[in-house]
């Protein structure tokens, strides 16, 4: 693990920024997460070490954006290429975060980081200098959709950081696309702050090529009356880990999450979520779907934390899993930690395969087995895909999934 060696010796990681120094310092004593900890015990160790076996690359190779931009107003940004953004329009403005603002915010975050839980972020921030950081704040109304691309280059590890502050009463559609390359690792850390009355429809689509690896960490802080909707899709990664941490800092906020991960061959994709309610009247509706085929391994661990202050929280979490092969495996662990008494919390989990009766019904109507399974899969996928803020005529994700899987 080339990177870990470098972290240990603190060598060859260029001119370090202050943030990098703090993170490297935190990592030096124990550069790897504890494999016995709840967050990492199911993680495939050899795959994680492959992810860390590349050298850090701050320069990007060219890449193709997977679908055309057909609306002139859409704002497209590529992390690494566009590190400067300043847009002031009639109704809205998007402004670059100053160095001080960035530092102050990240330092605040790091101060409450846990070595195991936030290891992905610590690694990201210790490897990334300011070049691959994109930070901006959005204010105003009638903001056009924002699309942000993050990509890896072959035979290297790229670390990219995205920070977005959403001012009060703002409403945006945000699509984040993480692209892996042949033999590459991408570390993407995203920080979103939603001020009061703001709302985000967030889509995260991540897919790779041959032997791509991904560490994708998403941290969201929601203020009162904010609404956060997340639709996510992860597929085609040798090893991918999607960590979602959402904090409703004063309650009274709404969170909807619909995520899906698809694994084939010997891939391992895991989703870890932690939703904390720090005030009353919070709302959460979460569904996570996995599909595991061949020799692959899909993991979901979700925790919902409801302390005493979070009275009248209404939270539900559902993990639905399809296991399609004898050699594949699925682990799922939805969990609830509740202290407040006036709450409605529930969770559910199922693991099964495609419904045989439905297949039989379709076949008696002359639909071939392949077509029938495709139909079933598309209905399974559609619930999640429809939640990702990109229209079908622009980017047909369902078609992509069905043809590639």
């Amino acid at each position, binding site marked *: 693990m080339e990177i870990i060696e470098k972290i240990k010796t603190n060598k060859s990681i260029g001119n370090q920024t202050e943030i990098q120094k703090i993170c490297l310092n935190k990592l030096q004593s124990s550069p790897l997460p504890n494999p016995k900890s709840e967050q990492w015990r199911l993680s495939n160790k050899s795959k994680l070490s492959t992810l860390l076996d590349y050298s850090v690359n701050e320069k990007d190779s060219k890449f193709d954006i997977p679908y055309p931009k057909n609306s002139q107003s859409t704002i497209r940004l590529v992390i690494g290429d566009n590190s400067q953004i300043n847009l002031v329009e009639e109704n809205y403005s998007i402004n670059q975060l100053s160095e001080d603002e960035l530092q102050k915010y990240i330092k605040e975050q790091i101060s409450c980081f846990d070595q195991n839980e936030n290891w992905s972020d610590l690694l990201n921030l210790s490897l990334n200098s300011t070049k691959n950081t994109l930070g901006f704040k959005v204010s105003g109304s009638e903001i056009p959709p924002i699309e942000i691309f993050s990509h890896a280059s072959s035979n290297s590890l790229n670390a990219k950081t995205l920070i977005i502050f959403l001012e009060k009463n703002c409403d945006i559609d945000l699509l984040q696309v993480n692209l892996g390359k042949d033999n590459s690792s991408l570390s993407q850390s995203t920080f979103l702050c939603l001020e009061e009355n703001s709302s985000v429809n967030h889509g995260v689509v991540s897919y790779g090529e041959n032997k791509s690896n991904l560490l994708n960490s998403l941290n969201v802080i929601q203020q009162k009356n904010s609404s956060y909707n997340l639709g996510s899709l992860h597929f085609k990664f040798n090893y991918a880990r999607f960590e979602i941490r959402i904090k409703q800092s004063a309650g009274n906020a709404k969170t909807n999450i619909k995520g899906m991960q698809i694994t084939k061959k010997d891939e391992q994709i895991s989703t870890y979520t932690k939703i904390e309610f720090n005030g009353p009247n919070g709302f959460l509706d979460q569904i996570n779907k996995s599909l595991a085929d061949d020799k692959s391994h899909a993991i979901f661990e979700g925790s919902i934390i409801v302390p*005493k202050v979070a009275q009248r929280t209404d939270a539900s979490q559902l993990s639905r899993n399809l296991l399609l092969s004898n050699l594949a495996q699925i682990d799922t662990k939805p969990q609830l930690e509740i202290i407040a008494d006036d709450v409605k919390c529930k969770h559910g989990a199922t693991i099964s395969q495609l419904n045989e009766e439905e297949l039989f019904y379709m076949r008696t109507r002359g639909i071939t087995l392949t077509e029938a399974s495709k139909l079933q899969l598309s209905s399974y996928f559609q619930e999640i895909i429809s939640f990702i803020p990109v229209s079908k005529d622009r980017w047909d994700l369902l078609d992509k999934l069905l043809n590639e899987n």
Partner: protein
Amino acid sequence: MVNENLVKDVVKEPYKYGFVTDIETEKIEKGLNEDIIKLISQKKEEPKFLLDFRLKAFKKWQKMKEPDWAALGYKKIDYQDIIYYSAPKQKEKISSLDEVDPKLLETFDKLGIPLTEQKKLTNVAVDAVFDSVSIATTFREELAEHGVIFCSISEAVKNHADLIEKYLGTVVPASDNYFAALNSAVFSDGSFVYIPKGVTCPMDLSSYFRINSGDSGQFERTLIIAEESSSVSYLEGCTAPMFDTNTLHAAVVELIALDDASIKYSTVQNWYAGDEEGIGGIFNFVTKRGKCLGKRSKISWSQVETGSAITWKYPSCLLLGEESVGEFYSVALTNNLQQADTGTKMIHIGPKTKSTIVSKGISAGNSKNSYRGLVKMGTKATGSRNYSQCDSMLIGDQASANTFPYIKSQQPNSEVEHEASTCRISEDQLFYLQSRGIEFEEAVSMMVSGFCRDVFNQLPMEFAAEADKLLALKLEGSVG
């Protein structure tokens, strides 16, 4: 609006089994080392294989670390400050109940477990364990007529050494976990049940565990073997006096069911839970596991956990035989500063195996109540099914309820379903009951009883009545 204090008052109820029996006991010195283990083994006149088993377990235990993954916080246990053997002094051999120390009989009478003849009416055979030893087993002759062996494990070691050697430690190996290793090294007594082929046990079997001294731990071991096509229902009850020190209880229970056999194991656990400030109480670390070895075998666990300061207990089923069935029905009530981390493991290994989990947790006061379960579908478990349901009820805003279900599947032709919910006592329902003239206290008790109904329905009749009463007692108190 429900008056919070009202509900809190309702869940307060003094522990009525907290008396100490003043009886002369024989204790060995505190501490744990090889000599102590040899001494225990020598006192019990054990064969060599058992001493070897103990010493091996002790060596493993020394290398192990106390587990810290459970959602429990308790002060460190000093394993050298515990007496590992304590027995009431009495005549060497007891040929009839008349020879048992009347004080002991009185103790069990006070606990509602009469060992004398009057128990005949209820048709339940009892094995009573006081501190480290079994003092009496009733109905042995009647059981023997059917070929059923029901005795203390020490007697079984002497009279049925072959069975003990064959089965002891096959379900829970000595190195299974920290507390199982400790138990394997120092276990002093417990019950042994053997149901021969084709026999349906003519009566319910029951063991009653009583910890009497404050400084000795209780380490009992229970082994139940159900041969082909046999069936048995086994009940277990536990109480302890009130001390302001913590007493350690680390038991191991092993069940083995062969082809078409069925074992029903029910527990009402009411160890002393400590006082309102959390002082005293039993630390209850128990390993219970059943092995469904045979085809169509069935093991059913039902438990009502209301006592102990700390509960760490996961009755499990290893479903090896084709079409074998595992069940787990649990009610766990915690109050004041009690902490419970309990649940089950259903390991599906054989094909067409089925398991059902129903867990109800009620947390009141400042207590912490966690459900932790594992459902695993192995690669050969084709056509297997699991259904789990765990519900929590919170009383008051200081109590916590956690749910940690681990689910792992490696078999596409199997189905796993899990659901969990958390709620509190519904104000609407309370209002409805009160408006019909039902007292507040009774209404709460009725609702809790209704919440637990799925589990109570699974308990044997006498036990269901006792469990219902026990919950009602815990929920009874001065209103207003």
